[in-house]
C-alpha cells in the first residue's frame, strides 16, 4: 500500500477511537465508531488473498450490525430522556440494547463467533491492532454508561465469555486463534467487574493490552503463526523462548507476574460485594486458559519439540528489530509489586 495512504488510514483509526473516547454527544460517538470501522478495513486487508478479504467482510458485517444496534439504543435513549449527552442511559431497554451492541463490538459471548475467524484470517500485525486497539473504544463507552447497565445481562455475558474463551482455546494449534480466545476470556474478566468497580476494568484493560502486545510482538519476531513453528524458536533466538514462557504464564494469571494483579483485584472486589460463587467460578474457568498457555510453553520453552532433522539447523536473514519489546516484556511480567499504587486511581 502507498505509505502515505497507509499512514492516513492508520491515523484515521486512531482518530476514530479518540473521537469515541472524548465526545459528549452520542451522535459523535457513533460517528467515531463508524470512522474506526471504515478505516480499519484496508488495514485488515493488507495482503490481497481470499482469506483476508473474507475476514475483513466478517468483521465489517458484525461491527456494522453492532453500530446499528448502538444507534437504535441512542435513539431510544433520546426518546425517553430528550437529550444527547453521555450520562447513564435512562431507559432499561436502551441500556440492554446498548450493552448488547458494545458486547458485539468487544467480542463477548454470545457474540464471540467472529473473533477467532477474523483474527485467523489476517496478518499478525493486523491481528495485534484488532485485539488491542479496537477494544479501547467500546470499553470506554461501557465505562461511561456503567451505572445503568443491567447487571444480570452483563454478568451472564462475562461468565459465558470466560467459559467460551477457556474452552474454545483448548483445541487450537494456530497462535492467532489462541490469542483470539484469550481475548474473549479477558474481555469477560473485564466486564465482570465493570458494574462493581470500573477502575479495575481499566486496570485489566491496560495490563491485558501490554501482555497481548508482548505476545504478538514475540510471535512477529519469530514469524510464527502455529504452535509447531513457535516450537522452533529455540533454534532461531533462544532468548525468546524464556520470554515467551514468562509472558504466557503472566497471561494465565500466575502470581509473581503482573497478569495476576487484575485477577486478584477483580476477585477481591467481587467478594467485597458479597458474591462468592461468581469469582470462584471465574477463577476455576481461568484455569482452562492457563492450560493452553502452558501447553504452548511446554512445546516452546520447556522441551525441545520433536522436529525433522533439517529443522534443527535453521538460518534466517537478519532478525526483525521490534521496538519497545524489552520494556513491554518487563512491564508485562514485573508489575505486581506496584499493586499498592492502585490507590492513586481513585
Amino acid at each position, binding site marked *: *500500500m502507498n505509505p502515505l495512504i497507509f499512514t*492516513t*488510514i492508520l491515523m484515521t483509526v486512531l482518530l476514530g477511537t479518540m473521537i469515541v473516547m472524548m465526545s459528549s454527544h452520542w451522535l459523535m460517538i457513533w460517528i467515531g465508531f463508524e470512522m474506526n470501522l*471504515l*478505516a480499519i*478495513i484496508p488495514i485488515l486487508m493488507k495482503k*490481497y488473498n481470499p482469506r483476508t478479504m473474507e475476514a475483513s467482510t466478517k468483521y465489517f458485517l458484525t461491527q456494522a450490525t453492532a453500530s446499528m444496534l448502538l444507534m437504535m439504543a441512542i435513539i*431510544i435513549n433520546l426518546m*425517553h430522556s430528550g437529550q444527547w449527552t453521555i450520562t447513564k442511559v435512562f431507559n432499561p431497554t436502551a441500556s440492554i440494547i446498548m450493552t448488547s451492541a458494545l458486547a458485539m463490538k468487544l467480542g463477548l459471548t454470545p457474540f464471540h463467533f467472529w473473533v477467532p475467524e477474523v483474527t485467523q484470517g489476517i496478518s499478525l500485525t493486523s491481528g495485534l491492532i484488532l485485539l488491542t486497539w479496537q477494544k479501547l473504544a467500546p470499553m470506554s463507552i461501557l465505562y461511561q454508561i456503567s451505572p445503568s447497565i443491567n447487571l444480570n445481562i452483563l454478568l451472564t455475558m462475562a461468565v459465558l465469555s470466560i467459559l467460551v474463551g477457556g474452552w474454545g482455546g483448548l483445541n487450537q494449534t494456530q497462535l492467532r486463534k489462541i490469542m483470539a480466545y484469550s481475548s474473549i476470556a479477558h474481555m469477560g474478566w473485564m466486564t465482570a467487574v465493570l458494574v462493581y468497580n470500573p477502575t479495575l476494568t481499566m486496570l485489566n484493560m491496560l495490563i491485558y493490552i501490554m501482555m497481548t502486545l508482548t505476545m504478538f510482538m514475540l510471535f512477529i519476531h519469530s514469524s510464527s503463526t502455529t504452535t509447531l513453528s513457535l516450537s522452533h524458536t529455540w533454534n532461531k533466538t533462544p532468548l525468546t523462548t524464556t520470554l515467551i514462557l514468562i509472558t504466557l504464564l503472566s497471561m494465565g494469571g500466575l502470581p509473581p507476574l503482573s497478569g495476576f494483579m487484575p485477577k486478584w483485584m477483580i476477585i477481591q472486589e467481587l467478594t467485597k460485594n458479597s458474591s462468592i460463587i461468581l469469582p470462584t467460578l471465574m477463577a476455576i474457568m481461568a484455569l482452562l486458559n492457563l492450560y493452553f498457555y502452558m501447553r504452548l510453553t511446554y512445546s516452546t520453552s520447556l522441551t525441545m519439540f520433536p522436529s525433522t532433522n533439517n529443522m534443527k539447523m535453521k538460518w534466517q536473514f537478519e532478525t526483525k528489530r521490534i521496538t519497545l519489546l524489552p520494556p513491554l516484556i518487563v512491564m508485562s511480567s514485573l508489575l505486581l509489586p506496584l499493586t499498592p499504587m492502585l490507590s492513586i486511581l481513585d
Partner: protein
Amino acid sequence: MMTYIVFILSVIFVISFVGFSSKPSPIYGGLVLIVSGGVGCGIIMNFGGSFLGLMVFLIYLGGMLVVFGYTTAMATEQYPEVWVSNTTVMGVFLLGLLMEVMLVLYVLKSEEVGVVFKFSGVGDWAIYDTGDSGVFSEEIMGVAALYSYGAWVVIVTGWSLLVGVLVILEVTRGD
C-alpha cells in the same frame, strides 16, 4: 387520510427498504432507493423541513444515486436478478412485507402498543402544529447551527467522507 399521511409514508418507506435489502440486482435496488428517497423527503416535508427535503432530492437522489445508477449500469450482468426470479429474494421480500403488515395491523387495531415504546394507536402519528417557533423555521436554523457551532461535526464528517473514498479505492485496488 391527510392526518395520517406520515404513517402511510413511513409504511411505504419501510416496504421499499425491505425491497432493496432482499437483495435483487443493484439496478433494482437503486430503483427502490429512489422511491424510498422520495418518500423520506415527503416525511421530512410533513414536519416542516422543506429545505432538507429538497436537499434529499437534489443531492441524494439527483447526485449520488445518479452516479450509483451509472456505475451499476456499467457493471451490470446480462440477466439481473429481480424480486421474482430467485426464490430466496422473493422469500425474504415477502417475509419483510409480512412483518410490516402485521406491525401495521397491530398499530391500527390495538389501543395501546407497548413494544419498545408506547404507541397509542394511529393517533400518535398525526402531526400537530405545536406552537410557534417564531419568525424563522427550525430546520434552516439547524443547518446554520451546523456550520457555526457544529464546525467540529463538519470537520469530522468531511474527514470521514475523504477517508471513505481512500478506503474504497484501497479495497478495490487489489494487488
